[in-house]
């Protein structure tokens, strides 16, 4: 009953966070701390890879909501990929992230990041 967060910088200021395990009351602070570090480091895009996330409760959903809010403030973006069906249901049923980018694979993600980059230049 744990959460592992694997981080890498996919592009400059664009961070992948692969979440593995459970994001809930017990583990959400772990991700909050990681998020605080990335925000302090001037992240522009935070990409959560949800392919290995087995469970997420409202405590976890709040971290995603906070990420989206913080990224909006700095003109950045939060991106989600590969949610398992139940996780997707939590996100969609709660209508938590209207208009939020959710991609099914990394090709879609990369194409989207290319587009953001093109628009920024």
């Amino acid at each position, binding site marked *: *009953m744990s959460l592992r967060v694997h981080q890498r910088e996919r592009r400059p200021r664009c961070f992948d966070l692969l979440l593995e395990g459970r994001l809930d009351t017990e583990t959400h602070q772990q991700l909050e701390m990681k998020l605080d570090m990335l925000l302090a480091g001037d992240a522009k895009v935070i990409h959560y890879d949800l392919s290995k996330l087995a469970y997420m409760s409202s405590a976890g959903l709040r971290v995603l909501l906070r990420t989206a809010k913080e990224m909006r403030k700095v003109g950045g973006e939060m991106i989600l990929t590969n949610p398992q069906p139940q996780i997707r249901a939590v996100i969609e049923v709660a209508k938590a992230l209207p208009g939020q980018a959710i991609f099914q694979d990394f090709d879609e993600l990369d194409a989207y990041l290319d587009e953001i980059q093109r628009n920024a230049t």
Partner: protein
Amino acid sequence: MAEPFHLTVPASQEGVVEAMKELVRFLDAARCTPDVAYAVQLAFEELGTNIAKYGFDDRQDHCFEVVLRMGAPTHLEVRDDGHPFNPWKDAPRPKQDGRLEDLPIGGLGLHLIRDMAADVAYERRNRTNVVTVTFKPKETP
């Protein structure tokens, strides 16, 4: 029908975390559908956390009861003897034009349960809050 899962849980965050481990073991053995297993865990965590945080007005140790009856449908019952609180009526609900991120802690979890469950109910019985959540597997097209 299989024996129900019945647990007395200390009304604390640690109590809810430990009970969740037992609940997950039970659900794995019960081999129910993934959507029901997920929704049961979610409802237990959200209701249990709310009781641990807000259910009691004193600083003494308290417990609450959880009973899970698997079947078609599956019923989760959570009972506590804290102050009267109907989560389906008394908790804050999202405004139509409001953002969910602005909901107070607790409100978001209850909103998720309401949407994932087939039915929710509450009654105050013998100075006890009895909250029931009913789950049905998703119909496959």
